[in-house]
């Protein structure tokens, strides 16, 4: 089986992704939606392992914690068009915790923004998949980033800009995914303050509350609690997803949020597990940065992902094996007469 060209792995839930159609849990199609979103989340993790290992680079922890959220966004919530990434009527999704882009790249590739096999060129010289996202080269990336805390403000500006143009029948929305550690940055709170002040109800802040930051635990390095109270004090309505890996809970909340445009911004505290579904990585700051150093480890991660999710979702057992075999660590293109040692992160 070709792990890059298999249409049976996943197909978008909606044929026309420019249109949004709510599906509630009593309706036909709800079960299919949940399953297809779970498949997408499984594939996001698997292809992230593939791209990071090829690159000898990446941030597994954050890429795994956001997988279900990304899957829900690209399979259900967002109105977008991979064939025309700059379609003016699209909903905007910003990834503010940009280091977690291996997850986003996998989601964009699967959604059809670029070929899935290109994920193997992540982080290599002359590739359009930068180590941190570059909106000038990568289709589907709304803004460049990699220095934390800047994009929430960008999202506010964009939401404000949309509103100033006056109502349109698309009622476009802005979604921005922020790290919990990222909330240490003062600029995040400047953005929250502005969103509350301008009563921007076309923006949803999503905080990936995975409890771990680069070098430790958020609560012991610089606590952001009580987060819901702080958001409320900034005139933002806080919502909580108890299990950010439960797709049904995510779908249900977004269904609710569509009725919650009440002159206040919304924020979702998304309780997740950093490194979710790979035991080595779960809640382990060591795997914030660092990709598997050898293919064998990546292959065992892929197997583990399949055991936890792929199997029950009916993914062929060959898929993780073939994807693991496809891994080629991209070597430097040039020799260096000076033999400099700058180790893999």
């Amino acid at each position: 089986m070709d792990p890059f060209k298999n249409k049976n792995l996943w197909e978008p839930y909606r044929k026309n992704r420019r249109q949004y159609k709510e599906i509630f849990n009593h309706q036909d199609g709800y079960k299919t939606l949940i399953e297809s979103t779970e498949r997408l989340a499984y594939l996001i993790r698997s292809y992230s392992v593939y791209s990071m290992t090829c690159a000898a680079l990446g941030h597994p922890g954050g890429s795994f914690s956001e997988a279900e959220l990304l899957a829900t966004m690209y399979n259900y919530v967002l109105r977008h068009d991979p064939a025309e990434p700059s379609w003016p009527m699209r909903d905007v999704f910003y990834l503010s915790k940009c280091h977690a882009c291996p997850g986003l790249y996998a989601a964009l590739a699967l959604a059809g923004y670029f070929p899935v096999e290109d994920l193997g060129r992540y982080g290599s010289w002359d590739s359009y998949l930068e180590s941190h996202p570059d909106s000038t080269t990568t289709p589907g990336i709304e803004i460049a980033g990699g220095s934390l805390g800047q994009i929430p403000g960008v999202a506010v500006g964009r939401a404000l800009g949309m509103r100033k143009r006056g109502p349109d029948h698309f009622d476009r929305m802005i979604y921005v995914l922020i790290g919990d550690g990222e909330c240490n940055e003062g600029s995040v709170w400047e953005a929250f303050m502005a969103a509350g002040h301008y009563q921007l109800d076309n923006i949803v802040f999503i905080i990936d509350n995975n409890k771990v930051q680069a070098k430790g635990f958020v609560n012991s390095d610089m606590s952001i609690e009580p987060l819901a109270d702080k958001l409320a004090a900034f005139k933002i309505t806080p919502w909580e997803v108890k299990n950010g890996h439960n797709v049904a809970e995510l779908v249900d909340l977004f269904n609710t949020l569509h009725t919650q445009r009440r002159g206040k911004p919304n924020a979702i505290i998304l309780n997740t597990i950093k490194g979710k579904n790979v035991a080595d990585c779960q809640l382990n700051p060591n795997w914030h940065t660092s990709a598997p150093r050898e293919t064998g480890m990546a292959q065992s991660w892929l197997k583990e992902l399949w055991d936890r999710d792929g199997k029950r979702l009916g993914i062929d057992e060959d898929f993780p094996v073939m994807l693991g075999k496809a891994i080629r660590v991209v070597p430097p293109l040039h020799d260096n007469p000076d033999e400099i040692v700058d180790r893999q992160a």
Partner: protein
Amino acid sequence: MAQFTIPGRDTTKEMRYQMGYALADLAKEYPDIVAVDADLRTSSGLHIFGHFFPDKLIKVGIAEQNMISVSAGLSQEGYIPFPCTFDAFSRRFLDQLYVSVAYSNLNVKVLGAYAGLFTGKAGATHQSDKELGILLRIPGLNVLEPGSNEEMRQILRCAVETPGPFYIRIVRCEVEDNEVGEGYKFQPGKGVTVVDHGHDAGIVTTGFMIRTAKSAAEKLLKKGIKVRIDHHPSLKPFDRDLLYDMASKVPVMVTAENHCTSGGLFSLVAENLAKEGRQKKVGAIGTDPEDFIHTGHVNDLLAHYKMTSDDIVNMVISLLD
């Protein structure tokens, strides 16, 4: 996954880790030293300091601006704070550094880790090759860029023992323990002649590039071209006398820096030569100031920006033609 271990003092050659050890050693002697971390300690090397002095490692979370402001406050209570984050993120706290630290002349010693191109493929947001442009224009700020671990240790000591604001660029990659020679003593504000084969051409270096320049000098010697290398670990204040001495002896010069070719070492050399009316051909080795440095293996980056020893050799030869 190896980042949360403490690399052996005798086995690691990476400057970031040796910096962690050096700072811990100094803290035994100077109990007022504290380190301030913005969630990068195991990357910057501060975790080694924190291993020995957990109470002296102050964590401010992912908040670079606050890291500098907090350091300014700590220094006002008599501490000697060493805030440390990636050199690239100096772009985030420039105003805090400018106003709270430099303008107020406070005793804060900023460590810029992952200086230049060596970031372990972290891409344009983490590569710091433009920052000297403003850092070198902040009044009263001492800016230093060591090229070997021994020099780094001496510079840290100098920073502790000299009142006032410092900015020290630290590389991530492996470096030699001593590039200058036995008995080398770093002197504040001074450069040092490292190689003196002859005066066919002069190479001016700072920081990491001393290693590349020395290798180029050997290759040039084999071709019969005898060069002198002046190493300038102190970028601010800059050793003009040493520059003028070299300029009076060599027909052409090449600058080599782990930074772009504008705003840093090349600009210092060009400005100072022009000021004295000393016309000279000066080639510049470094990155392109018009580029965001895209993600790539260091080999690819150094090849693309022509920053290897072979490139220095070629530039010297072409200037002499």
